[in-house]
C-alpha cells in the first residue's frame, strides 16, 4: 500500500494560468526530469522506470519499463516511439485534458523515453476529432524545437530527436496499438497479428514502442522526484496515481486524479469527487474502466480502482472511464448504445466481430423497441460467445481485443440484469417508457 502521502502528479497544473506554455512548465520544474535522465545511461533509465512500477495507462496496464526492455538492442534498424493519443473509448476523456493543459509534460516524457530507447523519431498519434488539443500540442512541439529539446541536439547532447504530430481521421480501432501503426503507415487501421510484437517489428518494420499519453506524461515525475517516490504513491504492483474519468448519473462528473487504493464508492460519493447521485436515486450499475469493462453491481463498489483488485472481480481497470447508471436507467437501452458503438467501430477484418457486433446491436434494438421474442436473450448470448466467450477475459476469437470489448459488456449485462431483458420481451415494451436514461436523461 501507499507509503507516501498522496499528492496529485498528472493534474497539478490544470487550470493554472498559461499552464500549456513552455515558460509556465519550466517555472514549475519542467524538463528537470529530462536533465536528470540524461545523466544516466539508457539502460539505467529503463531500470528506473521498472523500479517506479509505472504501468501503462492506455487500458492493459502492462509494466512500462518491462515493455521498454523488449526493444532489441542489436537490431540495426531505426527505432520508433509512437504515442497513443487516440482516446476514443466511451467514458474516457483524460488524455484530452493532459494535452490541453500540460502538453510539455508529455513532450518531456517523450524525450526521456526516446533517449532510453535510442529513438530518433517519435510520432504522436492523436484522434482526429481533437482539434483544440492538437493545436496546443503543436504549439508545444514548436516551443520544444525552439528550446533545443527536439531537433539536432537533445538538450546540448549529440543526439537528434524529431517529434511529429499525426491526427487520425475518426476510427476507434486505431487506438489498438498495431492498428495505430497501420494508420501511421498511411493505411486503414486493420490490427496486425501478434507476435511479432511492435517492440520487435513495429512501424515500417522497425522496433517500436507504443505508449499512451498518460503513461509518458508520468515518466518525467519518475526522474524529477525519483523512482522510489513514484512507486511509493501506489500499490505494491503499480506505482503512481490514477487519473479517473467520471461520467453518467452523478452530480459532479469530471476528471479526478486519485490514489490507486481509492474505491468506486469514494469516487462516486466523496465531496472531493462525484458528490453522489441526485436525491432519491441509487446506483444501479457502474462501468469501471471504459465501455468494454464488465459492469459492477452496487455491492461491489468498495473495490479499489486498480488493476489487480478489478481482475479479482472479473472486470478491468482499463482506461479509467467510470460510467454511473442510476436505478431508473434501462439496461437494455444502455447495452444497445454500447453495442452500436462496437458495431460501428469494428474494422471488419475478423468475421466474428464484423458479423457479430451488428447482430448484437440488431437483437438489442429489437428487444428495446418491444419486438423481442422468446429465445432472443439466448441468441444474444450465443452471438456474444461467438465473438469472445466469457470468462475468461482476453481470449476472444478475433485478431485484436475489440472483439473481447464488444462481447464483454453483453455477457456482464446479461449476467446481472437478465430479468430486465426478459421483462422487455414479455411485456413487448420498454418498462422505462420514454424515460430510460435516469436522473439526467431529461435534457432541457
Amino acid at each position, binding site marked *: 500500500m501507499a507509503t507516501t502521502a498522496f499528492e496529485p502528479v498528472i493534474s497539478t497544473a490544470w487550470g493554472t494560468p498559461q499552464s500549456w506554455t513552455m515558460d509556465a512548465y519550466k517555472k514549475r520544474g519542467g524538463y528537470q526530469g529530462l536533465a536528470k535522465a540524461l545523466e544516466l545511461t539508457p539502460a539505467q533509465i529503463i531500470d528506473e522506470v521498472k523500479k517506479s512500477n509505472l504501468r501503462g495507462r492506455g487500458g492493459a496496464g502492462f509494466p512500462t519499463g518491462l515493455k521498454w526492455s523488449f526493444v532489441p538492442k542489436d537490431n540495426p534498424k531505426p527505432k520508433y516511439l509512437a504515442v497513443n493519443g487516440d482516446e476514443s473509448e466511451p467514458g474516457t476523456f483524460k488524455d484530452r485534458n493532459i494535452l490541453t493543459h500540460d502538453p510539455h509534460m508529455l513532450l518531456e516524457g517523450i524525450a526521456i523515453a526516446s533517449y532510453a530507447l535510442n529513438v530518433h523519431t517519435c510520432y504522436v498519434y492523436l484522434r482526429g476529432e481533437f482539434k483544440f488539443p492538437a493545436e496546443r500540442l503543436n504549439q508545444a512541439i514548436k516551443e520544444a524545437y525552439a528550446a533545443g529539446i527536439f531537433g539536432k541536439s537533445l538538450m546540448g547532447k549529440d543526439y537528434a530527436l524529431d517529434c511529429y504530430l499525426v491526427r487520425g*481521421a475518426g476510427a476507434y480501432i486505431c487506438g489498438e496499438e498495431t492498428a495505430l501503426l497501420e494508420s501511421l*503507415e498511411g493505411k486503414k487501421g486493420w490490427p496486425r497479428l501478434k507476435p511479432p510484437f511492435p517492440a520487435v517489428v513495429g512501424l*515500417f518494420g522497425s522496433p517500436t514502442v507504443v505508449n499512451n499519453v498518460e503513461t509518458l506524461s508520468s515518466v518525467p515525475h519518475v526522474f524529477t522526484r525519483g523512482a522510489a517516490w513514484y512507486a511509493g504513491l501506489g500499490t505494491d504492483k503499480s506505482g503512481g496515481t490514477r487519473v479517473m474519468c467520471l*461520467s453518467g448519473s452523478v452530480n459532479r462528473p469530471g476528471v479526478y486524479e486519485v490514489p490507486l487504493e481509492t474505491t468506486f464508492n469514494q469516487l462516486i460519493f466523496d465531496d472531493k469527487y462525484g458528490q453522489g447521485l441526485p436525491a432519491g436515486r441509487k446506483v444501479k450499475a457502474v462501468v469501471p474502466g471504459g465501455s468494454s469493462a464488465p459492469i459492477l453491481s452496487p455491492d461491489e463498489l468498495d473495490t479499489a480502482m486498480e488493476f489487480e483488485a478489478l481482475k479479482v472481480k472479473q472486470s478491468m481497470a482499463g482506461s479509467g472511464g467510470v460510467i454511473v447508471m442510476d436505478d431508473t436507467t434501462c439496461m437494455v437501452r444502455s447495452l444497445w448504445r454500447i453495442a452500436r458503438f462496437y458495431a460501428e467501430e469494428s*474494422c471488419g477484418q475478423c468475421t466474428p466481430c464484423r458479423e457479430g457486433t451488428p447482430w448484437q446491436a440488431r437483437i438489442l434494438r429489437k428487444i428495446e423497441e418491444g419486438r423481442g421474442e422468446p429465445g432472443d436473450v439466448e441468441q444474444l448470448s450465443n452471438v456474444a460467445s461467438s465473438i469472445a466467450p466469457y470468462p475468461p477475459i482476453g481470449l476472444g476469437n478475433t485478431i485484436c481485443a475489440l472483439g473481447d470489448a464488444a462481447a464483454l459488456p453483453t455477457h456482464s449485462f446479461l449476467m446481472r440484469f437478465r430479468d430486465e431483458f426478459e421483462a422487455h420481451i414479455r411485456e413487448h415494451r420498454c418498462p422505462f417508457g420514454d424515460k430510460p436514461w435516469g436522473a439526467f436523461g431529461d*435534457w432541457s
Partner: protein
Amino acid sequence: MAESLFTPEEQKKFDTEIAEILSHYPADRKSAAMLPALRLMQDIKGWLPPEGLKLVAQVLGVTPERAYEVASFYVMYHLKKPGKYVIDVCTNLPCALRGAEKMLAHLENKLGLKAGEANERFTLRETECLASCGTAPCLQINEDHHESLSRAKLDELIDKLS
C-alpha cells in the same frame, strides 16, 4: 489535372504543406503520409473530390484505389460534398445518460433533418464518442467542439450559424 482542381492560392498551400508533411517520413515511405495528405486536401476543398484523391495518390506514389480505400475507412473524410456545417452529435452511453437522445431529437426538429441526412447548409450525423463524457451532452460543428449543452446554449449556437 491539378490546374482545374486548385486555384493558384490553393495550389500554393497544397505544394507548401505537402512538402512539409512528406519531410516527416522516411524518403522511401512517402505513402505513410496518406492521412495528413487527405486531411490537407479536405481542408482546402472542403471534401475529397475524385480528382483530389487521384492527386494525393499520385503525390504519394500509390494507386487512386489505395487512396480511396483509406479515405472510405475513416469517418472524418467526406467522399461526398457535405453541408456547410457538419454537426456530429454524440449519443453514446455517457452522453445518453445526460440527455443526448433528446438533444438530437431537438436538433432534428430544428434543422428539419434526420440524423444521417444532409442539405446544403447542414450535415447532421450521430457519432460515437467525442471524449467529452464529463461535460455531456456534446457535439461538434465542423471540427469545433461544444460541450455541457443546455437547450438554450444549443439554440444560441445553431442560430448564430450563417
